[in-house]
């Protein structure tokens, strides 16, 4: 892989963000709204429930982590869609850049976009609701890495769909994460799900990530085996995502859709 080419492609997206204040505002706006919304909802539950003492902390931490996953995936999709919307797709695919370099560039740039949105929101939660996601400690790094790998994987699957089916697949891009959210057990323990759904849910890394987050915040215990399991599951999906992306790319070359994508 050529780092200079990966940097060039990342630079294209950095220039795009840097040159547009509304774009930066948009990146920050939604995570912040999420924090406000979930902050107030969970505050209400704290006042009216005795389930656990730290409801605000747990729900808000879950909201921040879920948003991290959401932003990683959406950032990945958005960067790909930008190429289609700007009709730059053909220029990109005739440049001497490998598919692996495109994937690497989008993966690295997605973290940049994600952090622009999430860091202000996570910091805002500290004075507003007295909730600091950083209280999770060292395991937070692993949870974020796992979420990021899975977010990028979802991005890869959606972009594969965009290559395969064209811009009409765009709506799926927005819907993809909401589809997995109920199974991810983000805001509730896995026991809430019916037995048969629990089996399916355990195949996703999300359940292990959010169960572990609650474990740390409620019981102050870190189960690294659970975290490792989440990382391995995410990585398996990631490899699967890459394979699907390559297959879609080859399929698009066979169908001749790369040359007029976006028209």
């Amino acid at each position, binding site marked *: 892989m050529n780092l200079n*080419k990966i940097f060039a492609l990342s630079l294209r997206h950095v220039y795009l963000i840097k040159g547009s204040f509304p774009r930066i505002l948009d990146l920050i706006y939604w995570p912040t709204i999420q924090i406000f919304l979930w902050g107030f909802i969970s505050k209400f539950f704290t006042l009216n429930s005795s389930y656990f003492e730290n409801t605000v902390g747990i729900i808000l931490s879950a909201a921040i982590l879920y948003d991290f996953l959401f932003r990683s995936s959406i950032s990945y999709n958005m960067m790909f869609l930008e190429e289609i919307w700007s*009709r730059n797709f053909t220029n990109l695919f005739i440049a001497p850049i490998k598919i692996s370099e495109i994937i690497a560039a989008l993966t690295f740039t997605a973290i940049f976009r994600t952090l622009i949105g999430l860091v202000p929101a996570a910091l805002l939660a500290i004075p507003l609701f007295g909730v600091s996601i950083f209280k999770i400690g060292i395991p937070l790094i692993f949870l974020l890495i796992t979420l990021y790998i899975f977010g990028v994987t979802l991005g890869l699957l959606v972009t594969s769909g965009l290559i395969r089916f064209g811009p009409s697949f765009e709506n799926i891009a927005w819907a993809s994460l909401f589809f997995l959210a109920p199974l991810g057990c983000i805001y509730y323990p896995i026991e809430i799900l019916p037995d048969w759904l629990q089996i399916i849910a355990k195949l996703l890394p999300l359940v292990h990530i959010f169960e572990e987050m609650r474990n740390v915040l409620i019981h102050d215990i870190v189960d690294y085996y659970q975290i490792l399991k989440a990382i391995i599951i995410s990585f398996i999906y990631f490899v699967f995502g890459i394979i699907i992306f390559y297959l879609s790319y080859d399929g698009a*070359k066979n169908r001749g859709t790369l040359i007029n994508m976006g028209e």
Partner: protein
Amino acid sequence: MKLKVQNLVKKFNSINAVNDISFEIEKNSTLGLLGPNGCGKTTSIGMMLGLITPTSGKIYIDDTCLKPKNRIELLSLMNFASPYIELPKKLTVKQNLEVYARLYGVVEINKRVDEMVLDLNLKNFLHKKTGELSSGQKNRVSLAKSLINKPKLLFLDEPTASLDPDVGDFVREYIEKYKKNNELTILLASHNMKEVERLCNKIVMMKKGEIVDSGTCDQLIKKHGRQNLEDTFLKIARSNSEFK
């Protein structure tokens, strides 16, 4: 750089978009690929750029057969410009040229960008967003992008479509000048017959995915008993045409 296309076929399901075409472009010459809309020109160019997988046939670039394995290596020696594809609209002209210079592995990026700015007279709108430019300005930026890596093989798809005669002439003149001073082989797809007459050494006429005639401009005009290339084109295109 020499380009050789050998028995190239592309089928989309049961439709033969390109049907067994073969031709050669000699090093430093310009070949005009002509034909009515939908005759398979863009599909052929797509295959030569490695964007479309041929059903069968081979493409040789300087005796190297284009394959997925060597595509990246060969792409760094080629480039493509078309008014139907664009550069990122929200990036300035300079940012776009810089990004593409990096993607093509240009060594002295600033020097090369400056050369293109000077050559194509881009200075006045260098820091303007590409989406805010006029068609003529966009076209020159697109041409600058297509020459940023000093390609040895350039594909131009209707490079002066939708341009006023003045800008069109500037572009044609620039291509001529650039070719004189640099080693460059061009495949030009165009509907502007005057442009083809002016720039091309040889012409290949396509129709319904097949090559129906080829030769120099004079040879074709003479062979079909017409006064100019436009009439020759019409004669070939309209034989069995729905617009006849």
